[in-house]
């Protein structure tokens, strides 16, 4: 599906009002208490569309930090299970950053791998993603280094590019086209294509200068260097706090636990988890294949830039830079990727070790 439209700022307000009236939940970046996060809005004027990158990624709306998988109730030796809904009310998310929109499409790979995660896909199906091209946020952004960009449309249904008086709208998916069709009074004939193009080019230049790597080259090197001195010491700096995984739009590891409510009922839930903690891999015997922080940090790099792409095609990173901003120890993924990109691919002839 393709096509272009124009959405003026006023018509944008009307779109949000119309959607809200029709019972659709509308989310957008919202500023509160000095932070910007994706939140529920009733009026577009509550949104901080041109503001900072939301501190948390979009993943909470699709993969909540904790969510019930089912409930159980015991009666004597019998147990009855109560399912949780896997269909969800429609939601529109407006002002999504391209790095966050792309993460949804990236995660579809693992969530649909043979066994379909209905909780994920139920929300995916319910959501329409209206992305706004990003001017580039700060020097920790590197979306263009992982094959995306501040104007990438991956994972989006509509891509809005700021132009004078509103947004140039690129229709990316059938779902986006349906939204445009359902609100004909909100969208008008395309306008501002050239200025949109100028915005996009400028944003690409700005973000592109933060980090230039070849993800294929990084992947090839990682695939052949699991045991390499490069990783020694990366973990020394890491506290294993998992802040990187919490803010990451693509980290999706989870734990499954039972939460009893009294003796005879309870809820089985899944919680976000992270490969950065010591207990993540510990066996029942007490043996831990990742005994210290070095292999745990290596796993983070390997999974994102080798294992996931090898399995699902996409790099498990959209270059949002949140991990680098959030790390209390100053671990910098841009530096690490830059170093990985500069690793010699093959040992030159005549040299050993």
């Amino acid at each position, binding site marked *: 599906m393709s096509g272009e439209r124009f959405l003026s700022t006023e018509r944008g307000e009307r779109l949000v009002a119309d959607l809200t009236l029709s019972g659709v939940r509308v989310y957008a970046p919202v500023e509160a208490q000095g932070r910007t996060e994706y939140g529920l809005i009733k009026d577009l004027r509550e949104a901080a569309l041109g503001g900072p990158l939301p501190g948390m990624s979009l993943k909470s709306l699709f993969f909540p930090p904790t969510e019930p*998988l*089912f409930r*159980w109730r*015991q009666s004597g*030796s*019998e*147990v009855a*299970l109560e*399912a*949780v809904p*896997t269909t969800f009310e429609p939601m529109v998310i407006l002002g999504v950053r391209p790095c966050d929109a792309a993460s949804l499409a990236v995660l579809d790979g*693992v*969530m649909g*791998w*043979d*066994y*379909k*995660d*209905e*909780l994920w896909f139920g929300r995916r199906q319910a959501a329409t993603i209206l992305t706004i091209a990003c001017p580039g946020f700060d020097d920790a952004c590197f979306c263009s280094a992982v094959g995306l960009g501040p104007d990438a449309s991956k994972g989006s249904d509509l891509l809005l590019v700021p132009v004078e008086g509103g947004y140039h709208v690129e229709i990316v998916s059938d779902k986006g086209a349906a939204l445009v069709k359902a609100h004909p009074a909100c969208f008008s004939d395309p306008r501002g294509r050239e200025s949109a193009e100028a915005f996009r080019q400028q944003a690409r230049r700005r973000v592109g200068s933060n980090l230039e790597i070849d993800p294929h080259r990084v992947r090839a090197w990682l*695939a052949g260097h*699991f*045991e390499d001195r490069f990783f020694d010491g990366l973990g020394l700096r890491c506290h294993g706090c998992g802040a990187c995984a919490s803010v990451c739009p693509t980290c*999706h*590891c*989870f*734990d*499954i*636990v*039972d939460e*009893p409510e009294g*003796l005879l009922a*309870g809820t*089985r839930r*899944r919680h976000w*988890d992270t*490969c950065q903690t010591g207990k*993540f*891999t*510990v*066996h*029942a*015997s007490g*043996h831990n*294949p*990742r005994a210290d922080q070095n*292999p745990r940090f290596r*796993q983070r790099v*390997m*999974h994102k830039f*080798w*294992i996931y792409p*090898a*399995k699902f095609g996409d790099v498990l990173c959209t270059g949002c830079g949140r991990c680098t901003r959030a790390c209390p120890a100053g671990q910098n993924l841009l530096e690490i990727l830059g170093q990985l990109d500069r690793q010699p691919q093959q040992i030159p002839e005549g040299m050993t070790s």
Partner: protein
Amino acid sequence: MNVYEPYLVTIDDIRDETPDTRTLKLRFKDDRVADSFAFRAGQFGEYSVFGAGECTFCIASSPTRTGYIECSFKAVGKVTNAIRDLNVGDTMGFRGPYGNHFPVDDWEGKRVVFIAGGIALPPVRCVIWNVLDLRSKFADVTIIYGARTVTDLVYKHELAEWGSRPDVTLVTTVDPGGQTPDWKGEIGFVPTIVEKVGPTSDDAVAVVCGPPIMIKYTLPVLDRLGFPPDRIYTTLENRMKCGIGKCGRCNIGPVYVCKDGPVFTAAELSTLPQEY
């Protein structure tokens, strides 16, 4: 049905194998599930006690025996201790079968050598019964099983049965010091006993399962006996939660043990990093 929602099963029978290891026989409550449930040797499941959580074990019974499944577990943690507190007639949850399987069909006409240590016999026992229930399709069957002490040997009643069969060569061993005065089996570590028994690698496959240290020292012995790495099979048991390739816990380098495994050949293992 939500993929994280288990089937409900009833505990039909409980058998203590050792002071801390127990086997449960489980039947599906839903007749339709019971009728349609099928699995292959080597596959695993997520067993749950409601209120305690889920735990990963192989299915220890053979796919040739339908209508129930069995699991054997050692009480070491929260869930396994909760399972131990259950009685016959109680309800548990089961999700599965998950993962790949031993290519038993490909072994028809071949000799099969089973080597197991300690609590690692349950996954091998599944394959042993699979092969023995189709006995005529295979050549010589050799079982070498060891544990630290006589007490730690699991499935003692079945060891007796296998030992008495003319079409099975069974060798049991315990670590030095683990024998009782009336112990009639071998005394020595599993790799040493494998070397002593010296099963032929001619037209043979080997299934090896045990603690990492046993596998580490058994593989060179099998190599000396002429078993090529692609005819040696093992099953890995990394920590898992979802069992279906989502939760990100069981990676070993590029593989997800729950989806690409748990069964691997020694040839495949040699390409993986030592993260198991």
